């Protein structure tokens, strides 16, 4: 038998907002559940290095799932007549439904990019259900700088353009192997999916007006952002941290928008102390 990675993948059916989805979930490790949320237009593979790192899996049960319409999770029956668009409500409902279906007890939740933003919504609305939230490249407000329509048109190759839009979000220092693997996932996302996710990321998910209400005594908040991130910039991360009292912000030098995927060796130096601190301080 080959030497399998410790990651095990499974499928199950889950209902969200009236639609049934076949969900693909992967997990590795034992201990405190740690739910990982991938970026817009990507999938669970972004967390593969974390899931194969004993320093993490000795203490955490790391669980990543493909959002509906992403990776190997299917779109709903009848998807052909619908336009995919992720809203704050739908995203929060999806994560809550997932945690309930998996019967997870107060997991830590970590998300990146749009996943990094949504965990702040979770800390506000569902503080009691999460041990702590970790926002990678997650700010409570970002500013769009391009039109989403370019990402899904008949006359532009969708996989190519989605990857090319985010390629500069990988830091120049990141190893080519991981850079191109990160971008490959973008090339595989279904037509209109990155665009539909960005509706949440660029427009619907802002809540700098409400983020000050997050109570970090009930649900600790960690913010980690890459120096080279062009959307969740170090400045926007720090502005977010200043609005969320008690949150802890770190700017990761030499990293871009996809820390766990683009430079796993460097990212673990930043994330291990955070995971250790949560283990030691949060009950």
């Amino acid at each position, binding site marked *: 038998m080959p030497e399998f990675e410790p990651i095990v993948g499974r499928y199950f059916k889950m209902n969200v907002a009236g639609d049934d989805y076949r969900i693909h979930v992967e997990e590795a490790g034992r201990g405190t559940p740690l739910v990982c949320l991938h970026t817009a237009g990507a999938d669970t593979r972004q967390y593969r290095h974390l899931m194969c790192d004993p320093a993490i899996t000795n203490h955490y049960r790391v669980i990543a799932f493909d959002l509906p319409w992403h990776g190997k999770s299917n779109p709903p029956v009848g998807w052909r007549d619908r336009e995919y668009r992720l809203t704050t409500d739908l995203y929060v409902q999806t994560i809550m439904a997932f945690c309930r279906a998996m019967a997870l007890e107060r997991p830590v939740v970590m998300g990146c990019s749009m996943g990094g933003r949504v965990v702040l919504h979770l800390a506000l609305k569902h503080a009691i259900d999460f041990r702590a939230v970790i926002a990678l490249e997650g700010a409570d407000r970002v500013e769009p700088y391009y039109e989403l329509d370019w990402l899904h048109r008949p006359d*532009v190759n969708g996989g*190519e353009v989605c990857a090319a839009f985010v390629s*500069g979000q990988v830091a120049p220092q990141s190893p080519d192997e991981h850079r191109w693997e990160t971008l490959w996932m973008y090339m595989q996302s279904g037509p209109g999916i990155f665009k539909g996710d960005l509706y949440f990321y660029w427009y619907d998910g802002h809540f700098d007006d409400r983020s000050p209400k997050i109570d970090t005594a009930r649900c600790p908040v960690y913010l980690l952002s890459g120096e080279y991130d062009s959307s969740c910039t170090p400045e926007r991360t720090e502005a977010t941290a200043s609005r969320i009292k008690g949150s802890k912000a770190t700017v990761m030098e030499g990293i871009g928008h996809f820390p766990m995927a683009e430079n796993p060796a460097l990212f673990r130096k930043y994330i291990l102390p955070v995971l250790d601190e949560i283990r030691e301080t949060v009950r």
Partner: protein
Amino acid sequence: MIDRIRDRVNANAGLVRRGQYVSLPFLLGIGEEDYVVTIEKGRVSSVEPRRLATATGRFTIRAAKAVWDEFWKPVPKRNHHDLWAMLAAGIAKIDGDLLPLMQNLQYFKDVLAAPRPPREG
């Protein structure tokens, strides 16, 4: 650095292949200087200073000279490492017919970055 674009692109077979459907001139603005960069089937056939008011391209990419100087370093500082990052930071500007740019965005990003020396180690 601009002189290097042609040779660097044409010596990169993978890049030329990825640009095989691209044949057009575009305008590259480096501070006050405009250059017409002409692509033929993914190869850079010429890079010439703009001499006439009517010499132009399908689209234009402009930034200050200092920005391009940083962009062409082996490891540029943030906001200067990628065309889209420069747009997000408001230090580059694109005009004209963006369709061929969008259709071949990674190709054009790589053409712009072609003069960049490889990073150490």
